[in-house]
């Protein structure tokens, strides 16, 4: 069933339909928030907050793109969390228990796993070094695969702004990763 049908049912009081929307989007929103904020607890908070806001705003969610709306709320919730952390920058090494850096597979050897972890940490650090607006653009495009148009809708900015932010963000990211030898092990698929 498509998003809009589920939304319509949820708006008529069908909580199962809303739950279906939660299950459909919670992981991708969590992944987005995790890449934006860097810590699982913050990311989970963002997802919780996003769906709570969605639930409470159901009456107003008429004729909207559910996905775009959820992304917009999740980005805004992430901004709130980021603001909260301005005085207390997260130390990636301090609370890193391995959950932050998901391993692509459990059946790779320890060496490959260590390399994957090192690579993920390098990318994480590079992302966290970007200004938030840039980070949002890169994450929505390159982590969540949103189109330029979807990003523009989610952020409520013009298409040209999306393109220029994304371009600058990616250049800055590439520069930050230039000296990471781990990247050369990556098989490109783009």
């Amino acid at each position, binding site marked *: 069933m498509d998003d809009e049908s589920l939304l319509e049912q*949820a708006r008529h*009081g069908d909580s199962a339909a809303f739950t279906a929307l939660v299950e459909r989007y919670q992981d*991708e929103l969590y992944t987005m928030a995790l890449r934006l904020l860097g810590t699982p607890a913050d990311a989970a908070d963002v997802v919780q907050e996003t769906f709570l806001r969605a*639930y*409470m705003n159901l009456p107003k969610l008429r004729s909207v793109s559910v996905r775009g709306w959820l992304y917009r709320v999740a980005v805004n919730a992430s901004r709130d969390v980021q603001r909260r952390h301005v005085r207390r920058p997260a130390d990636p090494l301090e609370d890193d228990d391995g959950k932050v850096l998901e391993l692509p597979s459990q059946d790779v050897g320890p060496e490959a796993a260590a390399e994957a972890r090192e690579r993920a940490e390098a990318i994480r650090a590079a*992302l966290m070094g970007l200004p938030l607006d840039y980070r949002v653009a890169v994450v929505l495009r*390159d982590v969540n695969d949103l189109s330029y148009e979807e990003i523009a809708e989610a952020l409520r900015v013009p298409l040209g702004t999306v393109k220029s932010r994304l*371009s600058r963000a990616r250049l800055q990211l590439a520069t930050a*990763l230039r000296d990471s030898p781990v990247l050369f092990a990556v098989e490109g698929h783009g």
Partner: protein
Amino acid sequence: MGARHVAEHFSAAYDGELSAAERRRYEEHLAACAECTAAAEQFRQAIDAVHAMPAAQMPQRVVLPSTPPQVEPGRGLGARLRELLPALRLTPAWGAGVMAAAGIVAVVLVVHGHSGGGVNSTASAPLSDQQQVLGQNAAGGAARKSSPIGVGTCPLPQAVVTAQPGAVAADPPGFANRVSVGDPKRPGQQLVLATTSGHYAPGSQVLVYAALTTPSGQHATVIPCVTLHDQGAVAFLPGAGTMYGASGGIAAQGSSADTATGTSNGTSGSGSGAAGPGSAPTPSPQASGAESATAMNGSAQHPPGAQAPAAIAPPLAAGLSPLQYQAFSPYTLQPPLAIAAPTAAAVANLPLQVLQIPAGITPGTQLRLVALIPAGFPGNNDSAAVEAVLTIVVS
């Protein structure tokens, strides 16, 4: 593009977003420029690496209110409210005349809140354009012409719902930061005030569950006005000047010092203890007035530039009847930092409200959520006022 390097086109080229002409010039440049070719390759590797990061899974369940969203097709909230009005007594934000015309029991207390830097009313919350605010819709034209729901207006209480027994959940799941207050003069009634967390960021929104629940067989559930206050600023002062609840925790209002203050039932639920220090449900004997209480906590709890709120008396000029005024005469109301507004979900049987933490609040500040049911509500002039206080921490 000539001799200019083409790094600014890497992104569009990566996404295949260059026009045919742009792409031709881009590739011509790369063919002639080893520097750009190497940079483009490095760019591609970096962005590929971001793409290659694995997706993550939400590690915990999303908690939602247990009551399904009550939304009917094709009808605005206003229409639904008009239909519900016989059962749902709503106080307009302003104008006793409107209330009198509607035969509504509740009275309105007009508070002139301070509006210093960084203090936002609920109505200016980021989501407010997506949220229905009961008071605005119910109040009709009179309310719309005046200031919106938020700092400055606090209907007391928000609503009296003649509900079916058990229609309002006394113990909503997901609201772990919870306090429940009873009063000997209100047998069987519990004032429940709860939030989903004890910690909130400046500027963030707090989802508040607040209801005076009654046992089965009784006919009314009262949804109180919920206000947000500085930790030290007391919300309500009995006329004698004794102060309650300055240290947070629970305070319930009695009419005199030797009257049971309604704290005997104490807290219930596991979350209230985590709300922060100072949750002892005791009056604060050392404090003798609102101003000293505010001073105790210092200016750090106010947004920069904001004035410490001063206690003001209930306005006689607000058009209250003598009986209505009497209901409030023991109290002095502190201007709150914010006032919760009911969400659309509150229309039916889920007493959810939303308020916004002012953006300028310093992290680490403790704030108090206060829910108050005045004496005589609902429908019994002998019943005591009851107040629930919940501490939240700005982080």
